[in-house]
Structures are given as structure tokens and as C-alpha cells.
């Protein structure tokens, strides 16, 4: 016996946290989400997943207004020239995951009242030098002031204004980065050290490596004086550069080029050297212990990634690229051996075909073995291409060979597949 399903429509004009429809089950459980009925099945879509029930399990469905409908009603009720009314609706929209509409409404609020502080704050607008600026614009302005050496202005007004905004993690990092640089370039070495250490803790992954490296440099050279022992950028000795280069001698870390030189030196001396050592060890053990060699290659890759992370954004980025290429080349060479072994086995089977009488079943089994080896070789070649593709210039031959062989293998597989199908 079927129960009657009651549908109740509720207009929740004042509801502050509308979730959607409500589904009540006979066993007492309740779900909120978007409910739809299709034949005997009732589906409820929720934020974290979808559930389906038979109509027999359902006690009732309560249909409610969607957030968009509620918003439209709220907006209709609000006075269009009242910044406070509009802001209240915008706030409700933002609180109910209607970000796009909320931001549009905030934009309306500031056309009605350009100095509506809370609307500006929610739009990530900062008031700098008496003018409102969007976040990205403010950040550029801050960078400009840093270049112009307006340190007091930055630390006293701009950065506090930006820090007061409800920023996302990446945006907060960008602001803190400028603050740390401002400290350093302004000669406040201790404050800079603290700021970069904090950045290293608050950011994750490779960005943290860079900040930690800067903090470590500032610990080692706590008076802010670095001693440049090689001309920087290093290519300046061989190739004339448009930008000024840095000569050997003591120099202040408050100059960005000196910090770049210190980072380059640190990346070279620590990470690059450690990676090169691991690479040499891997090379030595590769013929006898390929698995251990692979682990060492992975560790070396990690070191090279850290080296690149330390110098990112400096005048000498990607210093470990040649080493990444070398690792890729070595791994390709090892993979190539496996591909060649598969191809050789395939050739052996191919050569044995037609030499002796064999049953249809044996013939099929041999074709299937060939197919298996071709499949294995194809996977190997795809792996080679995946490894080589990031370095198309350096590994042009590896890419070309893999592509040609892959084409050949595909041709073979097609022939074998036809033969196997015909034999069915």
C-alpha cells in the first residue's frame, strides 16, 4: 500500500539559512537538499552527495524556495537607493553561498555610497592615499612604493590597510611577502628575518623552501651584509647583460640583486650540490641496483626542485633545468631497455611463426603473447614521451624515436587484432 506524499510549499522570506527542500522518511530520518521525484524513486541532492529512496520509505517532501528566489524577494523589498538595505541583502547573499550576486550587490552599494567601508572591505578594496583601490591594484601600488623606497608609507599605511581585509591565504601571503621585503629593503634586518620565517611557516610546499632560505640567509648575515664571491648573474662574465650585474665584494642584502645573488649561491651550494651528489651515486649503482638508483633519482629530483624553488623570481631562475633533463634522459634510457626487451621478445615470437606446424589454439596463444609484449612496449613508450615532453628541445631525439616506435607498434597491434578477430 502506498502512502500519499504531501508536498508543502513554504515561502521562507525571512529564513536566514535556506538549505533547499526537506525530505522526511518514515523511519524518522530527515535530509535537506534538492529533492526530485522520478517514478518510484525519490532523489535528494545534498552538498556532499546524493541519496535515493523508494517512495514507499518517504513520509513527506517539503519544497522550499531556492536561495535565488529568496534573494529576489529580499531585493524587491529593499530600497534601491539605500546603501544599508542593499548591503543587508548583499550580506545575506554572501552568507548563503550566492557569491556572484553578493558581489554584484556590493558593487551597487558602493555606487550608492562610495565610502561604505564594510562593502569596500568585503570587496577587498583598500583605501590608500585617500583613494579606494581593488586588491590587485593595491598590491601593484604597494610594489610600486617598494620600488620607490617609500618604506614608511608602506609599513605605516598601505600594508595595515591591506592586512585589515578578509584575504584568502594566497592573498595574505602576497601582502606578507611585500611586508617582509619592505622590512629588508628598509634595513630592518631583524624584522625581515621574523617576517620571512613566518612566511615559511604559513606557506607550504616549495614556496616555503624559498622563504626559509631567505630567513636562513638573514640568520647567517644578521647585520644584513652579504659577501658576494662571484659576479652575479653568473652569465654576466661571458655574455653582456642589459641589467646591471653585481661585482664581488661586501654588499647590503637590502638591495634586491644582492638577495638574488645570496639565494643563487645558497641554491647552488646546498641543494644543487646535494642533488648532483645523489645523481652521481645513482649513476654508479644503476647497473647493479636499478631500484635503489630510481630512489636516488627521485631524491635528486627533489633537491633540484628545491634549488629551483629557492631562485624562483630572481634574475637566474630554473638553474637546475639541465639536471632535470639529465635525470629524464637517464630514466628514459632505463625505460628504453625494457621497451627493447619487449620488442625483442615480440620479434622472436614473430620469427618462430610459420616454422613449425601448430594448432589454431597455439597460434592464437602466440599472437596473444605478442599482443601482450606490444602492449607493454607501448606503455613504456608512452612513459618515455611523458618524461621527455617537458623538455622538447633537449630531448628532441628521445621524443622523435618514441613517436616513431609508437606508430610502428600501433600498426602491429592493428594487424594482430585483425588476425585474432578473424580467427574467432
Amino acid at each position, binding site marked *: 500500500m502506498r502512502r500519499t506524499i504531501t508536498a508543502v510549499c513554504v515561502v521562507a522570506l525571512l529564513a536566514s539559512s535556506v538549505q533547499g527542500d526537506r525530505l522526511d522518511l518514515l523511519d524518522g530520518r530527515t535530509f535537506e537538499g534538492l529533492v526530485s521525484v522520478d517514478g518510484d524513486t525519490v532523489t535528494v541532492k545534498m552538498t556532499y552527495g546524493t541519496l535515493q529512496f523508494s517512495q514507499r520509505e518517504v513520509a513527506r517532501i517539503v519544497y522550499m524556495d531556492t536561495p535565488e528566489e529568496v534573494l529576489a524577494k529580499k531585493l524587491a523589498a529593499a530600497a534601491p537607493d539605500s546603501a544599508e538595505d542593499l548591503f543587508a541583502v548583499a550580506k545575506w547573499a554572501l552568507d548563503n553561498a550566492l557569491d556572484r550576486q553578493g558581489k554584484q550587490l556590493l558593487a551597487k552599494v558602493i555606487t550608492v555610497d562610495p565610502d561604505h567601508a564594510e562593502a569596500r572591505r568585503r570587496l577587498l578594496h583598500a583605501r590608500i592615499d585617500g583613494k579606494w583601490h581593488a586588491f590587485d591594484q593595491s598590491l601593484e601600488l604597494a610594489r610600486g612604493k617598494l620600488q620607490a623606497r617609500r618604506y614608511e608609507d608602506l609599513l605605516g599605511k598601505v600594508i595595515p590597510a591591506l592586512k585589515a581585509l578578509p584575504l584568502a591565504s594566497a592573498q595574505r601571503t602576497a601582502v606578507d611577502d611585500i611586508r617582509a621585503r619592505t622590512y629588508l629593503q628598509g634595513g630592518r634586518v631583524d624584522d625581515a628575518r621574523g617576517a620571512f620565517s613566518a612566511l615559511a611557516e604559513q606557506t607550504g610546499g616549495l614556496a616555503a623552501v624559498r622563504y626559509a632560505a631567505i630567513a636562513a640567509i638573514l640568520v647567517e648575515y644578521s*647585520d644584513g*651584509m652579504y*659577501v658576494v664571491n662571484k659576479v652575479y648573474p653568473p652569465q654576466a*662574465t661571458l*655574455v653582456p647583460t642589459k641589467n646591471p650585474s653585481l661585482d664581488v665584494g661586501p654588499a647590503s642584502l637590502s*638591495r634586491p640583486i644582492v638577495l638574488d645573488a645570496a639565494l643563487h649561491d645558497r641554491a647552488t651550494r646546498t641543494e644543487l650540490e646535494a642533488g648532483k651528489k645523489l645523481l652521481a651515486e645513482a649513476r654508479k649503482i644503476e647497473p647493479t641496483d636499478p631500484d635503489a638508483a630510481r630512489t636516488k633519482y627521485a631524491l635528486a629530483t627533489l633537491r633540484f626542485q628545491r634549488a629551483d624553488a629557492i631562485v624562483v623570481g630572481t634574475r637566474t631562475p630554473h638553474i637546475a633545468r639541465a*639536471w632535470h633533463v639529465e635525470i629524464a634522459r637517464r630514466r628514459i634510457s632505463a625505460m628504453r631497455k625494457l621497451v627493447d626487451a619487449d620488442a625483442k621478445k615480440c620479434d622472436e615470437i614473430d620469427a618462430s611463426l610459420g616454422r613449425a606446424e601448430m594448432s589454431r589454439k597455439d597460434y592464437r596463444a602466440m599472437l596473444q603473447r605478442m599482443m601482450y609484449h606490444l602492449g607493454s612496449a607501448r606503455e613504456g613508450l608512452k612513459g618515455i614521451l611523458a618524461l621527455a615532453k617537458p623538455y622538447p628541445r633537449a630531448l628532441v631525439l628521445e621524443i622523435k624515436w618514441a613517436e616513431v616506435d609508437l606508430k610502428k607498434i600501433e600498426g602491429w597491434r592493428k594487424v594482430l587484432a585483425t588476425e585474432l578477430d578473424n580467427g574467432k
Partner: protein
Amino acid sequence: MVSRRLVIVYGVAVAGVCGLVAAGSYHAETTRGLQDALAKLHRGQLSQAEADALVLASRSDKSAPRAWLVVASARQRRGKYAAAARAYRNFLANCTSPRLRAYAGEQIVQCTADGSGPAPRRAAPSKRLTAADLAELATVEKQMRTETTEHFVVRARNARLAKLTAIEAEASLRRICGYILCGQAYPHSVAITVWADHKEYADHARDAPEWAGGSFTITSDNGVATRRIDLTQRDADGRFDTIMLDRVLPHEMCHLVVHEFFGDVECPLVLDEGLAMLAECETDNARVMLAGLVLAADREASLDDLFVRPRHTIGDPAVFYAKSFTFIEFLRNRMTPEQFRAFLSYVKGGCGIGDAIQRAICCPDSEQFIPALARAWQDRTVLQAQFLRALADRK
């Protein structure tokens, strides 16, 4: 009693806090002072930078020993090399960083070198010989004379020539291992034989090319390696062949040392020949003039082509040799000894020359690097050739 103790504890705490604050502000003051001196150094206000840093460095509490580096650098840039070296030594006395000690050591060497002016270059052997010496060295005795040094066993049909060749061989080896291979050791012995003339050379020398006046060989027999250099004493007119000592001996010796350094790996021709020409006692200006002339006419000349050119494809050997010499000399001149040695190691490890250069100087991998390097080399070579031409015209 209790309150008195409390007063003492309170007094000690206050004194501690005051001490910490004072130390903090003292450190901040030192940092500020050093930063000001560095700013002046950067702006080129050398005497003011020196004076400011000297105040910090001379503090009785030795709280800013690193200020001596600013003092030293300012003096060095002003050309006061002896005073600069003294400042570097003052810094070294309080230095705990191995990196900075190495830096200060290098700078002291640099100051000493700069202070004493350019080192007198040892003239080529031919320039040191008189007409009587040349006549004596052209004499061929019946017996082979042998002269032995640390690295060489020299045999020649002239006792004085054997001795002179041994001295020049050691000098060449020092130059090759020190300047060209940047500290490479050579713990081997080489047999050098100076044959009386080209005929005798061709009859006895191992693998002697018909056109050559000298050659080197390394052979292995039952695990014993034999290194040998064959040379010629007299030219076709029967006079002592001065080129043998000036060029052929160091050239062939460099091939030998480079060959051993590279082991089983084939050294690119441009590098092998470039290094060998660099080892010669004096720069052959004709090579520089030729390279300058060719490069001025062909500004689009590619370095990639030079890097991979095998011997049998060389159209004009003189041009190839001139280009090889100027390019390798350019690299050696612009790179530090460590960088040049790393460059050679990378080539030995299988890298291409362009890749090895970029790795050695730790510069970012860029497609623009090799073309830019080619332009820099061409500009320098053309400039050198123009300078030589101007000198020749003046004479």
C-alpha cells in the same frame, strides 16, 4: 629579610632586562652603521665608506669584525692594495665562516697581485736564445743524451737540447695543469724523444703524421701505460727548429694531458685543439687576426657548428683552428678556475659544450644563451684583431 631578598631579585631582573634592551639597541646601531657604510660603498663614496666602517671595525669590544670587509673593499677599489690586504687580515683574525675565510684569502692574493703589477710573462724559449745558442742547439751528436726530471725522460742527440727540452717540458706541464686544467695533477712519466730531423722523426716516431713536426702517443702493454712525445730538432734547412720548443712541445703535451684527463671519452675537437693552442708559449697573433677577419665577415657564425665539427669535415683547417683557439681562450679568460674546471668535467661527463658551460656557471637554461655567447665571443675576437691590426699598422 624577605623584603630585602625581593628587592635584590627585583634589582637583578631589572638589570637583566636593561642589559638585554641595551644589547638589542647596540646590535641595531651596529647594523645601521654597517648598512650606511655599505650604501656609501655602493654609491662609490669609497673614502667615506672606509671611514664609517673603520669606526665600527675598530671598536674595542670587536662587535663588528665584518666591518673590516667594507674597509678592505673600499681600499681595494681605491687601489690601496697593501692597506686592503691588511684589512682583510684583520677580518680573518676574527672570522668563523669558512666561506668568508676563503673569500678573504682570495682577495689577499688578488691585492698582492694587483699591488705588484702585472706578473712578468716568461718569454718564449726562442726569444731567450742567442745566435750562438741556436747554432749549438742545431748540432747533432752521434749518441743519444738523456735528461731526467720529475715528469720527463728526455732523449736528444744534443746534451744541451735534452736539458733545455726537459726544463721547458716541466714549465709547459706546470702551465697546462695549473692554468689550463686549473690544478689538475699529473702523476705520470713521459718519454720525450727529439729526433735529429724530419726523416728520422718519420722513421722512428709512433703514428707520426707526415705533415707534423711532433706527435704524442699513449700505448698500453700488459697493463703498463707508456706515454711518449716525439719531436724534431732541425728544420728542412738544418737549423735548430725553435717552433719545436715554443709551440710543438707544449701543444703535444697538452693533447697528452687532456687525453688522459678525458680517459675513454672523446674530447670535442674544438676543445682539444683550443686547449693545445692555449698551452703554447706565446699567442700566435696570426690566428687571432684570421679569426677576427672571418668572424667580422660572417657575423651569423654558429657556435653549435663549431662545437660538433668532426676532424674529417673541416673545410679550412686554419680557420677552424683560429676559431677554436679564440673561443677556448675567451672561455678560459672569462671563467673562474673553478668554473673552467667544472666545465671540463661536465664535457668529460658527456655534456655538450654549450650545456657544460651553462652548468659550470650555474646560469639558467636558456635558448638565447648560446647565440648571446657567440656574439660576445665574436665581438671580442673582432676587437682583438682590430687592435692587432692597428698595432701592425703603427709599426
